[in-house]
């Protein structure tokens, strides 16, 4: 296992573009902390975002994992290109001839996906913990370490999304087209949802679309904005009562994990069937 990870890290770290994107990704994750610096002082209106409660434990786990997940696109590019480039450089052929088995090849890529997700999770955990300790109104141990399921959801979200990218890289063999396919897929899911919604109702549409891969991934961590007390207050003033389900559900996790397994299996099956 360590050997496979070493193989992948040699491939990644010696590629300037990948290295740049990976570094940029972690710098951006770190930049979440900059939200703390957002403050407006316009005459009588004094607004400091960090004091609006977004860094309160345990809400910060929800908020930060949600925001951090936007940056996953950077690593998605790295993953798509690291698989697709093996095809365009024909190095996949040479890897297999040199004695890597087809399963080892897919497994080494999957291990990279797992490591990216794990490192990101630890990173977000650390950044959030530090931010929280600075700005949170509540600092009791039991509150700090509650709602940690958002970190698990974040990890699974990344693993399943990157596995999807991995599969697309293998399927399409060209990084640009694979990324294009990813956007196309997002649109297709949206269209499907609209068609079902048009034919039935919102609840049915949502219950079906939760099984689509990208929708399943986004269901893992729902938007945290309407949970902010400030937003709730405003909503209450205009007579809107926002009470939503923000929880991380076991079935969302199960659906995302099932897709992950399928993507990895399909990647392997494709590689096995293809003549290189």
């Amino acid at each position, binding site marked *: 296992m360590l*050997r496979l990870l*070493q*193989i992948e890290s*040699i*491939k990644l770290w*010696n*590629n*300037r573009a990948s290295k740049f994107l990976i570094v940029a990704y972690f710098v951006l994750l770190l930049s979440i902390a900059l939200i703390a610096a957002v403050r407006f002082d316009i005459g009588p209106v004094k607004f400091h975002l960090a004091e609006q409660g977004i860094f309160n434990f345990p809400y910060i786990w929800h908020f930060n994992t949600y925001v951090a997940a936007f940056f996953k696109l950077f690593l998605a590019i790295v993953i798509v290109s690291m698989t697709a480039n093996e095809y365009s*450089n*024909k*190095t996949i*052929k*040479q*890897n*297999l*001839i*040199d*004695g*890597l*088995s*087809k399963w080892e090849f897919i497994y080494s890529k999957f291990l990279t996906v797992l490591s990216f997700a794990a490192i990101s999770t630890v990173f977000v955990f650390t950044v959030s913990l530090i931010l929280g300790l600075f700005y949170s109104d509540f600092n009791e141990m039991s509150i700090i370490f509650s709602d940690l399921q958002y970190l698990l959801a974040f990890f699974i979200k990344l693993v399943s999304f990157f596995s999807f990218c991995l599969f697309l890289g293998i399927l399409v063999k060209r990084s640009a087209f694979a990324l294009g396919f990813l956007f196309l897929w997002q649109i297709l899911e949206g269209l499907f949802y609209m068609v079902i919604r048009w034919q039935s109702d919102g609840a049915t549409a949502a219950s079906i679309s939760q099984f689509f891969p990208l929708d399943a991934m986004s269901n893992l961590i729902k938007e945290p904005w309407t949970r902010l007390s400030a937003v709730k207050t405003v909503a209450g003033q205009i007579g809107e009562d926002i009470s939503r389900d923000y929880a991380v559900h076991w079935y969302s996790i199960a659906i995302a994990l099932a897709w992950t397994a399928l993507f990895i299996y399909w990647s392997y099956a494709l590689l*096995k*069937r293809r*003549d*290189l």
Partner: protein
Amino acid sequence: METILNIRNLTKKFGYLTAVKDLSFSIEKGNVYGILGPNGSGKSTTLGIVLNVVNKTKGSFEWFDGKVTTHDALKKVGAIIERPNFYPYMSAEKNLDLVCKIKGVPREKIQEKLEVVGLYDRKDSKFKNYSLGMKQRLAIASALLNDPEILILDEPTNGLDPQGIHQIREIIKKIASNGTTILLASHLLDEVEKVCTHVVVLRKGEKLYSGRVDQMVASHGFFELRCKDRDKALSLLRESHAFKDLKEENSTITAFLNEPMEAEAFNKLMFDNGIILSHLVKRKESLEEQFLTLTGD
């Protein structure tokens, strides 16, 4: 003798096209084999199948008498297929470092093998900045990293200039003299003739010949002769066991030899029988001609 690779009734179809048809041959340790055939005759496909990158349609193959799985066998094999494939953005040394990790070989081998192919002083250059000849040499170094029991080379001199071709052939000869078994696929006849001891000739995926290179040129040559009394000469030649085939064209008789015979002895034989030759030439079919007859449609 130890068998390294045994191929039995291997068939590969790409849709309607049959790239390899019912091919069988085996490779014994210590010889230098050539797979000879025109472009598109199934050489690379055959190598791809035994190297586990192309799926076979029918038939079987086994490495090392079937004692190990193909996956483990490939760790004892060094192979380059068609073009040298490396990560363009990495230096030669880094690329070989990666191959060491894949094959499970200590890094110390890198310097040794780069010196074999004369690239050690360019080890820090990126692969994409290499010339084609250097890329090909790097590929050979990479294939040698695990001190393979068999080295498989697919068109190693394709696209190189004469100097590059010469360098590669010298390297191959050097490796062969160390006792490494080599399997060389090529469409160049003189390449196979110069380097190989055994040859498998393919055409459209079918085996036409397999055996020693010197026996492929199985003929002892032929005489071309002219004389006044052609009928007498022909009947004399027909009676002799030394000739298997006679051809008469214009006024020239071509007599194909069944056994070795020198021109002097032949001349004397004819003279003793009262035939005086006005023209006598002894020739051998060139390997080129043999190859064209074998692979001709």
